[in-house]
């Protein structure tokens, strides 16, 4: 589904952040990326989503047979790519309900489907609200504005569930969640798993991976994947940290 080859990414001022990254994620699989702070995890997620200012200087990303880098952010979204942000953005003045209906309809229209009217939309959103245990009243508030950390993360999962993307990147969706919220998010992701949907889960902790069991775990260090393993690697990292891997590198 996703194939990243020898990816090099620089940000403003020619600072290279991603330094030759290779990663292949087949359809239906869940891959986890772990790694120290500042190793380039969020940068990778932004490059996948198409954020301006991140320059790909070398390498390629192929998504469902097409050149992902040739698409802009909204085309990628409409092609089924979704990023749950590490820090969801507050948008004062844009009501969450309008926002959710607009993005659902934008994607429907891009697929040649008809738009949902408010009642049809409401029916759909009510289901999903239950899934992530958010109150319908949050539809009346501005997007993420004044939401607690956990509510923001759940609003991300809510959008993911509404949009039903094929490829989901979750950037530390588990950070800042209490134990119950973690279970809710884990359960939400689990509910979306399927043979045609893949996940890239960026996390610092093993606990989300209890709910969303990964097929593979990768360690990102200084812009490269330095080690890959199965789900047991996450447990090992939790116990031993990253030092032993970094030392083995040098």
């Amino acid at each position, binding site marked *: 589904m996703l194939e990243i080859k020898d990816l090099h990414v620089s940000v403003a001022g020619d600072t290279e952040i991603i330094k030759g990254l290779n990663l292949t994620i087949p359809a239906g699989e869940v891959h986890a990326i772990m790694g120290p702070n500042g190793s380039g995890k969020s940068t990778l997620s932004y490059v996948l989503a198409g954020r301006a200012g991140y320059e790909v200087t070398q390498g390629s990303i192929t998504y469902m047979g097409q050149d992902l880098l040739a698409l802009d952010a909204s085309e990628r979204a409409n092609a089924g790519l*979704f990023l749950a942000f590490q820090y969801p953005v507050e948008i004062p003045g844009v009501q969450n309900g309008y*926002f959710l209906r607009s*993005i659902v309809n934008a994607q429907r229209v891009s697929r040649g489907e008809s738009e949902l009217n408010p009642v049809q939309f409401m029916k759909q959103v009510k289901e999903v609200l239950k899934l992530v245990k958010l109150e319908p009243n949050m539809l009346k508030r501005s997007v993420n504005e004044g939401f607690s950390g956990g509510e923001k993360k759940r609003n991300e999962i809510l959008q993911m569930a509404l949009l039903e993307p094929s490829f989901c990147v979750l950037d530390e969706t588990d950070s800042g969640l209490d134990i119950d919220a973690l279970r809710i998010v884990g359960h939400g992701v689990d509910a979306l798993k399927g043979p045609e949907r893949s996940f890239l889960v960026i996390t610092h902790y093993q606990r989300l991976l209890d709910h969303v069991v990964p097929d593979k775990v990768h360690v990102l260090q200084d812009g490269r994947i330095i080690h890959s393993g199965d789900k047991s690697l996450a447990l090992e990292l939790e116990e031993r940290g990253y030092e032993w891997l970094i030392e083995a590198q040098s």
Partner: protein
Amino acid sequence: MSQRDVQWGTLLESNITPHPALAELLNPQQRAQAVTSLTARDSQRAEAWRYTRLKGFNDRSLYNVSALAQATPSYTDVSGLSVYRISDLATRSAHLTGLTAEAWSWVSQQLTSQEPLQLLHTLHASDGWVVVVEDDVQGGDLELRHIISSGDQTQAGKVHLNAPQLWVYLGDRAQLKVTEHFGDDGESCSTLALSLSGFSLAQKSQLTYVRAQQSSRDLKKTDHVHLSRVSAQIAADASFKMTSLNLGSDLCRLELDVSLEESGAETDLLGLYLGSGSASIDQHLTLRHLAPQCVSSQRFKGAFGDHSKGIFTGRVIVAPGAHTTTADQYNPNLILSERAKAITRPQLEIYNDQVECSHGATVGQLDEEALFYLKTRGLSEAEALRALTAAFVGEVRAELEDSALINAVDLGLLTTLGLEPHERSVGEEWIDWEQLISGELP
């Protein structure tokens, strides 16, 4: 852009055909004075007009459509609400028309004031309206549509000038809502609107005033200049609430001069001004706190695309005796292109220390992160831009009751963004979430 600027000289010399009744108000000496006053390079005037350069409609002559296009007010039939033509008042003695001496004296004073725009206006005006609401009369609603139309083909190449004026006099505890629209009929000719609106509010009266200015014409092909002056004098415990929309023109100046003259007077001034193309939009406010315990609020929002320019000058004068004054001023500006520019100039002149003044003036761009966030959800660049600018103006838009005005704001935004009207809107359509959430909709 010399083409679209106005030259005082041109305005003063060509086609000056004021209504005979109005011409009498200005004697030759005063007229000469007006010319001198308007053309003088007086330093104070130069400062006040620093950002609106009025030079040269080239040699294109003006075609004064005021007489033809004189809008007639439509208003609710309320006894105690009277509407007069200025020409009638000026030719007959006031007592014959039923107008009180007080009201007439106020009107005459306004008509002969030495304010530059007033002088200029008087030279071109053909007529205008006086509205009087008697003590305790409420429920009045009056609307004027000043639409410049280009009916006469023989005048097609000329700049069509319209110079309307409206003077409203409210008695004690009277209430009135006034709406003025400024625009054109969509044909292709350049326009110049010179408008005056003045309000006198007696004690405990309340006036709600909405003014909307937009151009339906292609700003690229024709020139649209809008120069207007709004003044209000507010007595004890009276309230003046204004919403001003300047939604599109090449050159626009709104002069707003509000005096809180007696204790307990209040004013709430809300404005939205948009610029596109090479427009220059000048909002020039003077607010005078002349008495104790008065409250004022100015909230003006500006958004500018292409290489347009917005200027906000908010002068707040708090007189020595005006203790316990509350004056808030808020002027956020949104810059939508690299070449667009916004200037904000809060000017507080406070002559006593029992004053609570707040001001927040900002110039900023759309939040890149928010734009990216919206796009990662599948909205196009245009949709995302539209959502965020709509959010920016939402505060003003939310206060509009008339759906035609809401549409006008939305269209104005599209022009500002350089977008076509069919781009999807986010957050613009009205949905009753309460009902939807509780499942009461069909």
